[in-house]
């Protein structure tokens, strides 16, 4: 029997790592860390989980230790947030390029300066090009589900890529909600043991991490990109298997009331649930409006995304990050993904929810109303924002 328990998203992610029976956890357990490694440290100390827990001196070391563990075929997990992910950055690239299926949850936070530990998507956007499979959670159940699913997909012999599970700092990581925890036997049925085909072994020596001279570097990167794009097939397969066992189905682009919608709002992460309330109210008033949420951020789900927005007249993209000198990163990517489509909706971008600034229902109402206005009249400002004092 599954159990319904009250958990914050951090503890839900820790439960998922525990039920996945991880072999190695390495984390830097100080700010900007979350309760994920804290809870896992308790589980290991209390004997609930048999794993090597490696506390290190920085996030750079945390990810480095994870690579070493993955290289010998261990199921490997870490977690970080905000500044920690930035410090880890160099090794984040190495994980994907060396094809080590590390799973990492990131409790999304703003980046300093000014010093901020509060939530937004700046940390996630700074690692968008690192070659990790990346998904966003909307609630605590998804923090559990997607962390578990991440092992299934990353470790698949046809994938062998690291997976990053993004969940909003504080609005999810520190907030308690009911979460359904499955039976261990169901988890075991979903998630086979990790069989890394190239595990380091003294009886069969091989080299990981050799240098790549100009004669092969370009070919290597193309091979990595092809493998990364092809991983989407297993991403989808993993979600199907997950749904068939646990009853909750996930999709690269989640839709809410999109039927016959002339205007679509695009959000990512937990604020999607606030936006849904506003969509409900506007639908009640007869507005032809719907909501889409990018669940799969990398590899970018071009096909599903284009299919979903086909037929809409306006697409309003809400970003929780500024790409300085460019605008909202999700906005610019989404607009680029639609450039070759005919017909395509007018795409407008609005930025808000930075560094822990809350987004109320009224704020999302403004996003939608203002978004429609910009679509009609054309942009009037350098940057469209919500909830930022003028």
């Amino acid at each position, binding site marked *: 029997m599954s159990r319904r328990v009250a958990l914050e998203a951090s503890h839900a992610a820790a439960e998922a790592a525990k039920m996945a029976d991880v072999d190695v956890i390495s984390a830097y357990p100080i700010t900007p860390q979350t309760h994920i490694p804290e809870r896992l440290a308790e589980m290991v100390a209390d004997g609930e989980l048999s794993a090597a827990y490696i506390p290190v001196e920085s996030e750079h070391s945390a990810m480095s230790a994870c690579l070493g563990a993955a290289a010998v075929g261990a199921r490997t997990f870490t977690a970080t947030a905000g500044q920690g992910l930035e410090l880890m950055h160099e090794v984040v690239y190495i994980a994907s*390029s060396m094809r*080590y299926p590390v799973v990492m949850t990131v409790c999304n936070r703003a980046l300093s300066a000014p010093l901020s530990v509060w939530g937004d998507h700046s940390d996630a956007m700074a690692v968008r090009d690192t070659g990790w499979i990346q998904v966003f959670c909307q609630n605590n159940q998804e923090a559990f589900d997607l962390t578990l699913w991440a092992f299934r997909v990353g470790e698949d012999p046809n994938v062998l890529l690291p997976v990053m599970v993004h969940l909003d700092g504080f609005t999810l990581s520190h907030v308690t909600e009911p979460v359904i925890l499955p039976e261990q036997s169901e988890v075991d049925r979903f998630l086979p043991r990790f069989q890394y085909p*190239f595990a380091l072994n003294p009886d069969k020596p*091989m080299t990981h991490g*050799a240098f790549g*001279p100009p*004669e092969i570097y370009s070919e290597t990167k*193309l091979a990595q990109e*092809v*493998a990364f794009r092809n991983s989407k097939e297993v991403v989808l397969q993993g979600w199907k298997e997950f749904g068939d066992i646990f009853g909750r189905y996930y999709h690269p682009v989640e839709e809410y009331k999109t039927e016959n919608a002339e205007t679509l709002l695009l959000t990512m992460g937990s604020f999607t649930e606030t936006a849904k309330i506003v969509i409900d109210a506007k639908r009640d008033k007869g507005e032809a409006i719907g909501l889409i949420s990018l669940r799969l951020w990398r590899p970018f789900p071009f096909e599903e995304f284009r299919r979903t927005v086909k037929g809409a007249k306006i697409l309003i993209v809400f970003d929780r990050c500024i790409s300085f000198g460019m605008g909202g990163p999700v906005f610019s990517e989404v607009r680029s993904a639609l450039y070759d489509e005919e017909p395509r909706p007018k795409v407008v971008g609005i930025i808000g929810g930075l560094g822990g600034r809350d987004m109320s229902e009224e704020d999302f109402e403004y996003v939608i109303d203002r978004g429609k206005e910009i679509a009609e009249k054309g942009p009037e400002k350098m940057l469209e924002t919500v909830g930022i004092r003028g």
Partner: protein
Amino acid sequence: MADKLSWKDMEVGNIVKEAGNASFRKTGDWRTERPILDKEKCIKCALCWIYCPDAAIKPSEDGYYEADLYYCKGCGICARICPAEAITTIEEEEK
């Protein structure tokens, strides 16, 4: 050889699956200076053999130690370490 490979030939994560394949690589063509052994001075102590960072110095049947020029990168460590000053280095251009 490597410059003929397609992206489809690349190993997952660039893993090198065979051990010891560095021996295929002719590192001797990196050399700008090469070691010359004076057998009259050599005391057969084997220090050059021990110190050579590339294992490019090999014992010969008559007990001397000589550089395999297919691999020797010409670093000169053998000449520096030789207690009998039996090894000198000369420019590759010199005969």
